[in-house]
């Protein structure tokens, strides 16, 4: 177990594994995502309340799922960084934080555009949108702090502390925003009760979510490989690998 853990932390081992898995991640991710989107856009039935605008859900929900789970993954990595000082954990946080930011932005953007035809407004200070906006700030802070510190190791550990402080705060923020929202709920924008989704609707949604997760896996592997190249460029194995023409 312990040996496996150490192996997992070795950049060289990861680099090899990632290179082997990446084509599969990319192919299956694209396939599932395209299948989910095409099915959702063209074949899924119309929602009887919201009409066709609900079709945004097939990208909105996957983006929102990823935005949140990337932060959780970063928090686990942060623990590993602080406790075991594993190199790969630092690399992961640094590599995926911008991806998380983009997905958070996407979920906010699609949510806003979805809101216009559905509730007649681009933005509501609704609990979910507001806490997503705060998540965007948290990602921004993580990236800004990482950029501001020159030394890689210090940056990784400082970012790890920040991510953990953020993750302790997320439930508190979520709870307080929910509470605040019930206090200020503007009656006109009351969310309609979600009817249970038809099978033809949730199957493509699940496909799109799975596809986006796989694509995220590909992106994470690629960006981590780049970061490993930068950090380990003076080691023998990177030199041998690059001179031998391996990707």
């Amino acid at each position, binding site marked *: 177990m312990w040996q496996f853990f150490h192996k997992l932390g070795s950049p060289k081992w990861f680099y090899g594994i990632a290179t082997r898995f990446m084509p599969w991640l990319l192919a299956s991710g694209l396939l599932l995502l395209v299948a989910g989107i095409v099915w959702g856009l063209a074949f899924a039935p119309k929602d009887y309340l919201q009409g066709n605008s609900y079709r945004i859900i097939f990208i909105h929900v996957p983006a929102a799922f990823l935005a949140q789970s990337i932060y959780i993954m970063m928090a686990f990595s942060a623990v590993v960084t602080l406790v075991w000082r594993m190199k790969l954990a630092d690399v992961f946080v640094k590599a995926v934080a911008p991806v998380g930011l983009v997905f958070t932005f996407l979920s906010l953007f699609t949510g806003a555009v979805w809101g216009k035809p559905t509730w007649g407004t681009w933005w509501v200070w609704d609990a979910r949108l507001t806490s997503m906006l705060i998540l965007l700030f948290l990602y921004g802070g993580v990236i800004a702090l990482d950029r501001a510190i020159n030394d890689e*190791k210090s940056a990784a550990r400082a970012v790890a502390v920040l991510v953990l402080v953020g993750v302790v705060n997320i439930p508190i923020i979520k709870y307080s925003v929910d509470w605040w929202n019930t206090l200020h709920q503007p009656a006109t924008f009351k969310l309609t009760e979600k009817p249970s989704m038809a099978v033809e609707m949730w199957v493509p949604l699940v496909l799109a979510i799975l596809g986006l997760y796989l694509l995220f896996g590909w992106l994470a592997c690629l960006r981590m490989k780049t970061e490993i190249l930068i950090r380990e460029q003076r080691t023998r194995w990177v030199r041998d690998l690059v001179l031998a023409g391996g990707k």
Partner: protein
Amino acid sequence: MPEPLLQAVSLECERDSRLLFQNLSFSILPGTVTRVEGPNGSGKTTLLRILAGLNDAWSGELHWCGKPREQNRESYLRNMLYLGHRPGIKPLLTPLENLRALMAGRRPVSDEVLLQALAGTGLSGFEHVACRNLSAGQQRRVALARLLIADEPLWLLDEVFTAIDAAGVEAIEALLQQRAAEGGAVIVTTHHDLQLPGMKFITLGAGENDEC
């Protein structure tokens, strides 16, 4: 031969992706003065900060009295005195208040002792003047006054002679030598040409890092 106070085994430190030193091993015995030497940027200050426990970005082993240092951090801190580049003196406080604050977390010391120490560094008459009105050398002397009352067996002194006049330098040299004779261990970095009988060296940045 007495047991080494501090023992370093294959220390390695990388800073801003530049390797400062690797495979650095040495032992610090009680009753010795050790000088860390090397050109600018060779990592003297970083080494001292690592030994003090201020810098965590290193690998290797550090043993304090035969036990891993990280496991008895508090005992280590209690027995180690570090004076850095920055003197640790609040410009708004007087020398006496500064010394009091510096000793506060360590052990109880009476004001008389502190005043004596200040007098010993040539600061009598300045005890109640805010430190920002003192010269750079005088401010350093406030920090150095701690050496006159310190009972910690290990001293880590980074650039002790900065801004100190010739007479002061001589007095400090004598102090270090006396300290070694008492059985204390001192590690210094300095660009001043410090020569003491029986002094040990740790050389950085010369390519090879030998044991000493």
